[in-house]
C-alpha cells in the first residue's frame, strides 16, 4: 500500500455565503502524479492553496506528508513545494539570490544550497540570467524560477497550479520530465491544469472538480467507466462530466 502524502477529508471553504470548495476528500500517494481538473472557478486553486497552507479551510482536514497542515503546519510546509499560477516573485532579487533566500527559509546548509541553486539554474536554462533581477525575466523565465524555488529543498510533495502556462514547448517538456522523475523517486506531485492532453499523458490519477465538488477521481480507465456515454478521451469525459453543452453552443455561434 503506497504512502498517502496528501490527504484531504471533507474539505470545505466558504467565502460568506459562497461555497468555493465543498466536502472534498481525496488522497495523493507517494510516487504518483495527480492531475486536478475543473472548469474556471471550480475551486481548483482554492483547494491547492488549502493543501499548501496558504488558505485556512472553513472545516475539514488536510495532511501533507502525514502532518496536519493546521496543527503541524511547519512540518507539513517543510515537506512541500508549491508553484502558484502567477509567479509572484521578489522582483528586485536576482534569480540566484531568490533561490538562496528560499534555501535559507528552508534552513538548507549553505554549501548544499549553493550547489542546488547552480544545478537548478543550469537545468532550467536560467544560468545566464542568474545575476539579473527577476523583474527583467519573461513570464516563462519567472515560471521556471518559481519551479526552481519550489524544488530547492527537494520536497516530498510538490503542488503546482497551472505549471505549463506561458512556457515554450521545450520548457513545458522539461517540466513534465522533471515531475515524472520526481514521482518516480517517490514524491507525490499534484498539479492543476486546463490542458487535458497533459493530464491524460502525465497523470497517474485524475480528480475532476466542478462547482466546488469533487465529481470524479481515478485513473483514466476508472474515469471511462464512470462516464455513461462511453467516451474514450479525457476531453470528452471532462466535458461530459462538467457539462459541455455550453461549449457546443459557443462553437455554433462562432461558425
Amino acid at each position, binding site marked *: 500500500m503506497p504512502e498517502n502524502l496528501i490527504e484531504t477529508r471533507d474539505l470545505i471553504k466558504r467565502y460568506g455565503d459562497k461555497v468555493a470548495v465543498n466536502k472534498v476528500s481525496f488522497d495523493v500517494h507517494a510516487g504518483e502524479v495527480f492531475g486536478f481538473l475543473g472548469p474556471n472557478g471550480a475551486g481548483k486553486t482554492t483547494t491547492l492553496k488549502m493543501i*499548501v*497552507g*496558504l*488558505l*485556512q479551510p472553513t472545516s475539514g482536514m488536510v495532511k501533507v506528508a502525514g502532518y496536519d497542515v493546521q496543527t503541524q*503546519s*511547519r*512540518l507539513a*510546509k*517543510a515537506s*512541500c513545494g*508549491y508553484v*502558484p499560477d*502567477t509567479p*509572484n*516573485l*521578489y*522582483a*528586485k*532579487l*536576482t534569480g*540566484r*539570490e531568490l533561490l*538562496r*533566500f*528560499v534555501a*535559507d*527559509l*528552508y*534552513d538548507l546548509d549553505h554549501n548544499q544550497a549553493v550547489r542546488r541553486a547552480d544545478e537548478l539554474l543550469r537545468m532550467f536554462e536560467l544560468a545566464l540570467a*542568474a*545575476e*539579473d*533581477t527577476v*523583474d*527583467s525575466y519573461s513570464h516563462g523565465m519567472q515560471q521556471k524560477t518559481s519551479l526552481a*524555488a519550489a524544488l530547492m529543498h527537494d520536497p516530498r510533495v510538490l503542488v503546482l497550479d497551472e505549471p505549463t502556462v506561458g512556457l515554450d514547448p521545450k520548457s513545458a517538456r522539461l517540466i513534465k520530465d522533471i515531475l515524472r522523475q520526481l514521482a518516480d523517486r517517490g514524491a507525490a506531485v499534484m498539479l492543476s491544469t486546463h490542458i487535458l492532453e497533459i493530464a491524460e499523458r502525465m497523470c497517474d490519477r485524475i480528480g475532476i472538480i466542478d462547482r466546488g465538488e469533487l465529481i470524479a477521481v481515478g485513473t483514466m480507465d476508472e474515469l471511462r467507466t464512470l462516464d455513461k456515454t462511453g467516451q474514450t478521451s479525457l476531453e470528452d469525459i471532462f466535458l461530459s462530466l462538467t457539462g459541455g453543452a455550453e461549449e457546443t453552443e459557443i462553437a455554433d*455561434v462562432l461558425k
Partner: protein
Amino acid sequence: MNINSSLIHASNNAAAASILSSVWKLLRLRLQITYNSFRRAKLRNKIRIILVWILLLGFAYFILSASRWLLSLVQSPEFAQYADVDLRGILASIPTLTLTALFVGTVLTSFGVLLQAMYLSGDMDFLLATPVPIRAVFVAKLLQAVLPNFALFSLFGIPMLFGLGISNSYSFSYYPLVILLMIFLALAASGLSSLLVMLVVRILPPRRAAEILGLVGAMFAFLCSQTGNLANSFGRDINFSGTRLAGLLVLSNTRWLPLNWAGQGLVALGEGHWLTGILLVGATLGFSSIVFWFALITAQRLYYSGWAGMQVVARKKSKQPSRTTRTTTTSVGFVYLLPKPVLAILQKDFLTLRRDLRSLSQLISPIIFGVIYTLLLLRRSGQPPTGLGEAPGWFMNSFRIVLAYGNIGMSLFVGWMLLSRLAGMGFSHEGRNYWMLKVSPIRVWHLLASKFLVAYLPTLGLGFIFLTVISILQGLSILEFVYSFIAIVMCLAGMAGILLSFGVAGANFNWEDPRRMNSGMMGCFGQILTIIYLPISFGLFIAPLGFAQFLELPLIYGYLAGLMLGSVFAAGSAFIPLWLVRRRVEQLGGE
C-alpha cells in the same frame, strides 16, 4: 445577413472611421471608466470627491476675486504714492508667467501620466491591434495626459488672468483667447512630453523610469514642504529685494522667447494694440500647432517602428555570482548568530528596499528631514541658553539637563519618521510575494524578529548618526552620550514593536503603488500611539535626572532610576504588542 457578415461590416466601418470620431470614442471610454470609478466608490469617498471639487471651485472664485481686488489696489494712485514702487512691469508679466508655468508644468506633469499611459498601462497593444487609426490612439493618449493637469492649471490660471483682465478693463477678445492659448500651449507641452518619455524609455526600461520619477517626485515634494523652514533659516543670507525681483520679471517679458509671445499678445490685445496682439497670439497658436503636430507624428512613428521600445544602453551584466547578500551582513558580525530564516529575510528586505526606488522614495523623507534639521541645529550651534536668571539653582540645573537631552529627542523624532514607514509597512512590503513566506516552514517569532530588525537596525543607525552629530554640537560628555545612546536604543525598540504590531494588524498585500501599502486606519493608529509613547518613554529616561537634581542626590541615582524605568517601559512596549499580534501573523495572507 447572418451574424458573421454583420460583424465584418461593423469592423469595416470602424476601419473607415475618422480620426476625430475615433478619438472621441477613446476619450468616451476614459470618461466611462472615470464615471464608473466614481459610481462604484464608497459613499464617503464620493462625498470626499464632491467636497474637493466644491473646495477647488470655491478656491478658484477666491483667486478671481482676490486677483481682481489686489490688482485694482496696486494700480491705484494711492498705492503708488505710498509704496513708491512702479509695479507696471510686474503686472504686465503676469500673463507670461502664468502661461509659462502652464507650459513647463504640463511638460513635467504629463511625463509621468504619458509614461504610464503609453508603456505601463498595458492597453496600447490592445488599442493598436483594433481598427482604430494609430494617430487617434496617440491623440487620445496625449489628451488623456493633458486633461487632468489642464483642469487643475485652469482652476488657478484662468481666474488669475481673468482677474487681471477685469481690473485692467481689457477688451472682450482677451477672455476667450486666454482659454484658447492655454489649450494650445498645453497640447504642445504634452506633445513635447511624449517625445521626452520616448527618449527616456530608449535609455531606461519604463518601470525603472517610473521608479526614478517616483523617487525624484517624493524628494521634490518633501523639499517643497520644508521650504518654509529652509527659507526662515537661510533666507537671511540671501540678498533678496523687491526691486531685483521686479527687474527679473521685466526681463522675462522680452520678446526673444516664444513662450513670452502668448502673454504679451494677450496684454496687447487687451489694451487695444490690435496689430501687435494678433501677430503675437497668431504666432503662438501657429507655433504650438506645429510643435503638437510634429510631436504627434514623431511619437507615433517612433512607437510604431519600435525605436522607443528598444533600450540602447545595455544593462551591465555581471556574470559572477552575486556576493551582495554575503557582504550585507559581514559588516555586522552579530547577525550570524541569528537563525538562518531570520537572516535570509533580513538580507532579502535590505536588498529589495535598496533596489526598489519606489520603496526607497517612501523612506527618503525622514532622511531629508533629518539632514535639514541637523543643518538648522548646526546654524544655531545647538547650545542651551546660558545664565541663571531669577530662577532657583536646582531648577536651572534640572532645566539644563533636560534641555541638553531634549535635542536628543530630534534623533528619536527622525527615527519615528523612518520607523513609521519601515515597521509600519514591514509586512505590507511583501505585497503579492508574501505567499513565499507563507508556504515556507518559518516560525512566527522568526518572521516577527526579522521584520523587527529590518525596521529597527537602519533606524538605530540613523539615530546613532544624529546623536553623534548633536552630541558633538552640544559638547555632551561621554557619560551623557552613552546614556543618550541607551535611551535611543530602548525607545526605538519600543516604537518599532508598537508600529510593527499595527503594521501586522493592518497588513495589505494587494497593492501596485507602494504609496497604497500603508494607507489603512491601523497605520494611523500606530503613528498616533507612538507619538504618545515617545515622550513618555524618553521622559522616563530623562525625568529622573531632573528629580535627582531637585532632591540634591548624586546624579548616578538619576541615571540608574532612568535606566530602569525607561528600559522596562520600552522593552514592554517592544514585546507586548508583538506578543498580542502573534496569532494574527499566522492568519496573514490566508484571508
